[in-house]
């Protein structure tokens, strides 16, 4: 390895009163602790039925200045998004994730939206993605990078529209971590036994308080986060 590595580890062990690594029994305990990944306290505010969780998610997301709308199925999604963009005076040229989840919506039926699938460039103003999960506890979306999910779609354009099937709302971050572990273990995930490279927890649009503590939206990431909740459950 490297000299610095050895020096650091020896210094560390010396400070701990050891001449070498932890003994085998301890190592076994520590490995088990990692493998067991026990949950610590999860706030009780999420102890509610699923419709309650979706309501909680929506309320919390709005508190942090995301906007939301509800539709009853994927068929309504393109029109709902077109209407949102028109109402906010935003362009209808959008860059969309090449995500098969989104294929279920009848995009072609809406003539307003001009859609490009793929990775955003600097001039792109609006992106559309789906979200694999959402945490009700704090109104937080969870996004995983992958072949059909460029993470830059979450950050580059000024407006980010997210299609969220209500069934995907979960209670806590811990639920997302369990899902990430499943993906990691799933040979079909296409990630070679590794987790997604990037997991984004997104809670509202981008913001900054750096100028006299004035809360401003759209520092570098999206200024607007619009969530279309599809009531599929």
């Amino acid at each position, binding site marked *: 390895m490297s000299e*610095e*590595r050895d*020096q*650091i*580890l020896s210094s*560390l062990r*010396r*400070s*701990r009163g050891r001449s070498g*690594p*932890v003994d085998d029994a301890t190592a076994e305990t*520590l490995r088990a602790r*990692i493998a067991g*990944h*026990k949950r*610590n*306290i999860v*706030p009780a505010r999420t102890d509610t039925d699923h419709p309650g969780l979706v309501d909680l998610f929506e309320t*919390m997301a709005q508190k*942090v200045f995301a906007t939301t709308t509800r539709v009853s199925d994927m068929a309504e999604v393109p029109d709902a998004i077109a209407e949102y963009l028109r109402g906010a005076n935003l362009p209808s040229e959008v860059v969309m994730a*090449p995500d098969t989840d989104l294929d279920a919506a009848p995009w072609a039926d809406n003539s307003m939206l001009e859609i490009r699938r793929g*990775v955003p460039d600097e001039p792109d103003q609006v992106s559309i993605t789906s979200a694999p999960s959402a945490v009700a506890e*704090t109104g*937080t979306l969870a996004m995983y*990078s*992958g*072949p059909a999910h*460029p*993470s*830059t779609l*979450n*950050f580059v354009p000024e407006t980010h529209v997210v299609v969220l099937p209500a069934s995907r709302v979960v209670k*806590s*971050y*811990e639920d997302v*971590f369990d899902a*990430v572990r499943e993906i990691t273990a799933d040979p079909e995930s296409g990630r*070679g036994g*590794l*987790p997604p*490279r*990037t*997991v*984004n*927890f*997104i*809670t*509202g*649009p*981008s913001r900054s*308080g*750096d*100028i*006299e*503590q004035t809360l*401003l939206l759209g*520092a*570098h*990431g*999206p200024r607007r986060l619009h969530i279309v909740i599809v009531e599929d459950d």
Partner: protein
Amino acid sequence: MTVHSTSRNFKNNARDQLANEDLQAALNKARGHFVDGRSTARDNLPEFDALRDQARDIKNHTLEHLDFYLEAYEEKVRESGGHVHWARTAADAQRIVLDICRSVDAKQVNKGKSMIGEEIEINKALEADGIRPIETDLGEYIIQLRGELPSHIIAPAVHLTKAQVETSFRENHTELDEDRVLEEPLSLLDEARTILRKKYFEAEVGITGANLLVAETGSSIIVTNEGNGDLSQLIPKVHIVLASLEKIVPTLEDAATILRVLARSATGQEFSSYTTLSTGPKRDGDPDGPEQYHVVLLDNGRTDMLGTEFEEMLRCIRCGACMNHCPVYQSVGGHAYGWVYPGPMGSVLSPGLIGVDEAGHLPNASSFCGRCEEVCPMHIPLPKMMRHWREREFESHLSPGSARVGLGVWAFFARRPRLYQLATGLQMRALSWMGRKRGRLSSLPLAKGWTKYRELPAPQGRTFQSRWKSGERV
């Protein structure tokens, strides 16, 4: 590497900052936001204090077995295709970063906010090597224009007024229309956003810090509100993570516990706008993400703090709650502290990293009011450790000679009650007589520190002990 600090000059720094009207105006504006924010967040989460206890326990457990967890972490990073570099000193860390940048012929490096980056003075090192570092965090960008250090660990530009930001923008963004209006904070934000936007796509390397490292998965976690850290790590070819050793936690669940108290303690937000886990370089088939992922693990004095009375400082998660609630920080601002880490956490950490002879003033400039410890999400006993620094100074005779003599005389008497009562009896009668007309003294030899700004109430007359001894009762 010579450390550049003005901490020795703390007293003068403090005096200057007290007279700095812009700073005082800025601090007055900011204070309530942070204090009320944390208080409200705590009220809205019944489990908050229990989570703090668990967060402390997680860190204590990790520090107990830090070498194991670091090695476990390293293995996982490698498994995911990343590289771990161990840096004993700031100079080591600089060298590692420069080597990586040179290997991809980097001309520009985009930086998400990193306090470790400040600690190792990475911008200076990059510039000396002909590489342009671009700070993308709005606060860091502003102070980069002004050539200043951050004055707060999460709000780097909290010491500035809006007018000062406007001046800096006008002075530096000379390509823009002189007559443009920059009255509203939003116009300043938009200007910064536009200028930095293009720069996101121009760098070969992106450097971020890490709020947490997770041994279970080999992930690094950044907690931001702007999204600049994410843009800095997703677009360039190379992502470098600068992290000190004690950032590690065992599992994702442990990370979640700490994340629940971090933003709430820092700004009062329940969760930051962007909390991102990064694990290695992009996977085959990923349409974006960095091709290379490097983690620089920095020691720089931390392994020496382990096993000492300062170990508990290594639980710090850099939330800034202590300085938001500290009456000393709120009086003088962060720059007075003279180095990277201000406020109570800086007062304990800095002597450990740059030496007590350099940073000794910092743990002394505290009234031990205890508010910092009260709000610390990790229950770090900050006043206690400041007192330990004072003990170290006293033992090595670093405290000023006159103070030692004064203390020595006082202690001599305090340990001898009869002599003490004799001496003080006389003194108090004399002082009382001197102050009899007005009941107080406006000046007194040897008491300049007091009487510079305050009247000294005169003693009532005979001491309590003397009166009680002579039989006075109620």
